[in-house]
């Protein structure tokens, strides 16, 4: 929608400006206060209002040829051509209007069209159209800057929220208490394993805290975090949990928002493996192109498992985060069939 037409106050102000312009131009050519000035103004003001309306069309030109993506030569040519066409149109309207004006006011001593001079409409029309184009570009740039600022604020707020949520889920009570229970059991049966588990827990919590503070981390760091988590769960689940990582080396240096993969991996264990008597393998795959990265987490699942809302909420949260950071250039796909649950996260820089 046109930013000026949209707002009634803007529109009123805009046309007022054109009326003032009209009077100024007339006064410049025919000094006031004379009868000639009066009726030349009467003739010119409607024309300026009409041209004001015509000049609003510059917005479509500006919108169609964004200033950032159009070369300067092309820009000048296009705006010039538009200005020429529109000023010609104005000229034709002015000449028609002068005939009509002559018929209405028979006592007119001089044709105002000739008073104002034929070239006037071309030169003034051309210049004013160019100015209108420039004005519209300014409006568009201003709007864009505002939108960008809003997006930055929104994404900071969402990232902060996600960070909080991620932290809260790190301190997922189930995970924490079950892990502590395992440590407690290991202390009397396998002290080395007990020590290893406390170290893993400490590493895991420390890394998630660090990661949560950064806007981006490398896939290597994110996978490291997932490995700590999975190693801890492997102590708990024993042979029921197997892990397979198939990650292409170049993908490791790609960046991702922190803790974007972690909830997916946790879901794979909590809603997948934990519901299977014989367990299964959590597979993490990553492939990447020059500017793209796809990470896949796959796990077997029980189609009859009780379905809470927690899983869906977690995945919806990841979708929101991806959207604020990458706009539409990212995607999360969730697929469940023949007892396999699969999540694909794709990011295009």
């Amino acid at each position, binding site marked *: 929608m046109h930013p000026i037409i949209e707002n009634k106050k803007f529109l009123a102000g805009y046309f007022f400006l054109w009326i003032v312009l009209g009077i100024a131009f007339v006064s410049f050519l025919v000094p006031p206060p004379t009868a000639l000035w009066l009726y030349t103004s009467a003739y010119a003001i409607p024309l300026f209002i009409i041209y004001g309306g015509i000049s609003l069309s510059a917005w479509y030109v500006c919108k169609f040829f964004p200033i950032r993506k159009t070369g300067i030569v092309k820009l000048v040519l296009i705006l010039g051509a538009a200005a020429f066409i529109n000023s010609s149109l104005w000229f034709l309207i002015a000449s028609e209007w002068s005939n009509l004006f002559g018929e209405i006011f028979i006592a007119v001593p001089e044709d105002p069209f000739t008073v104002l001079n034929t070239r006037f409409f071309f030169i003034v029309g051309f210049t004013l159209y160019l100015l209108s184009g420039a004005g519209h570009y300014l409006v568009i740039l201003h709007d864009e800057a505002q939108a960008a600022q809003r997006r930055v604020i929104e994404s900071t707020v969402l990232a902060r929220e996600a960070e909080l949520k991620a932290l809260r889920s790190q301190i997922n*009570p*189930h995970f924490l*208490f*079950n892990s*502590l*229970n*395992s*440590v*407690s*059991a*290991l202390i*009397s*049966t396998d002290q080395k394993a007990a020590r290893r588990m406390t170290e893993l827990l400490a590493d895991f919590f420390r890394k998630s805290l660090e990661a949560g503070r950064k806007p981006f981390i490398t896939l290597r760091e994110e996978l490291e975090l997932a490995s700590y988590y999975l190693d801890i769960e492997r*102590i*708990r*689940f*024993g042979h029921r949990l197997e892990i397979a990582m198939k990650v292409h080396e170049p993908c490791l240096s790609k960046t991702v928002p922190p803790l974007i993969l972690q909830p997916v991996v946790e879901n794979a264990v909590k809603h997948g493996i*934990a*519901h*299977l*008597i014989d367990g299964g393998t959590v597979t993490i795959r990553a492939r990447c192109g020059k500017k793209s990265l796809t990470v896949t987490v796959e796990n077997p699942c*029980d189609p*009859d498992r*009780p*379905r809470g809302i927690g899983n869906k909420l977690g995945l919806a949260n990841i979708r929101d985060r991806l959207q604020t950071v990458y706009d539409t250039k990212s995607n999360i796909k969730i697929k469940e069939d023949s007892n396999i649950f699969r999540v694909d996260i794709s990011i295009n820089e």
Partner: protein
Amino acid sequence: MNKIRTIIIDDEELARSIIREHLDEYPEVEIAAECANGFEAVKAISEFKPELIFLDIQMPKINGFEVLELLPEPPNVIFITAYDQYALQAFDVHAVDYLLKPISKERFDEALQRAKVKIERNTKDDITPVVTAAHKKQQPIGRVLVKDGANVHVIRTNDIDYIEAKDDYIAVNAKGKSHLKHYRLSDLEEELDPAQFVRTHRSYIVNIDRVSKIELYAKDSRIAILKDRTRIPISRANYKKIQEML
């Protein structure tokens, strides 16, 4: 003196080992079996008839509450959970014994002492309200558990064709098989998804997706014919409701 027979039920070996370790100090308690899932638990409890079980709530396939639901006479129970706000609340309300992971020696000793007193006096906590509350939380149910001897069958509600009441039992018909369950048809009706299952008759609930047509049987009485040609009676009072659903 007879020893107290007990069974430890938890899907994590490490969690079971802690209970085992704590029980080392009680020679009067004998561990009859350890189970890693609900199926094993139902089997072992039917076989060993323990006086006491340690029962983890979160387990694959059949959770702790469902194990109890499947037992006609559940033994004394000490529940175990890492964290389940909902269950904990229910335990406190109904004064049922439970242990939190990581399991502390003090809490364990207290719970075991109380259990021993109950076993000596031959009394039991009433766990029915806790089990019912857990059951209600999952409505509409997506599956029905049926105990067949010592085995447990999990029947998906989507697979059910119809359910018939037979005295104190219900016969759940799914995939060409009929499974008996000690249950009330009206209770099951409440638990099933009302958009999918409809009571056609005092003794019948039908999966509406299975109905192929309804025929006039005699004056004023109708029958539903299922896709596998089973004929299910429809009472006059329920006919309108079924018509709306179809």
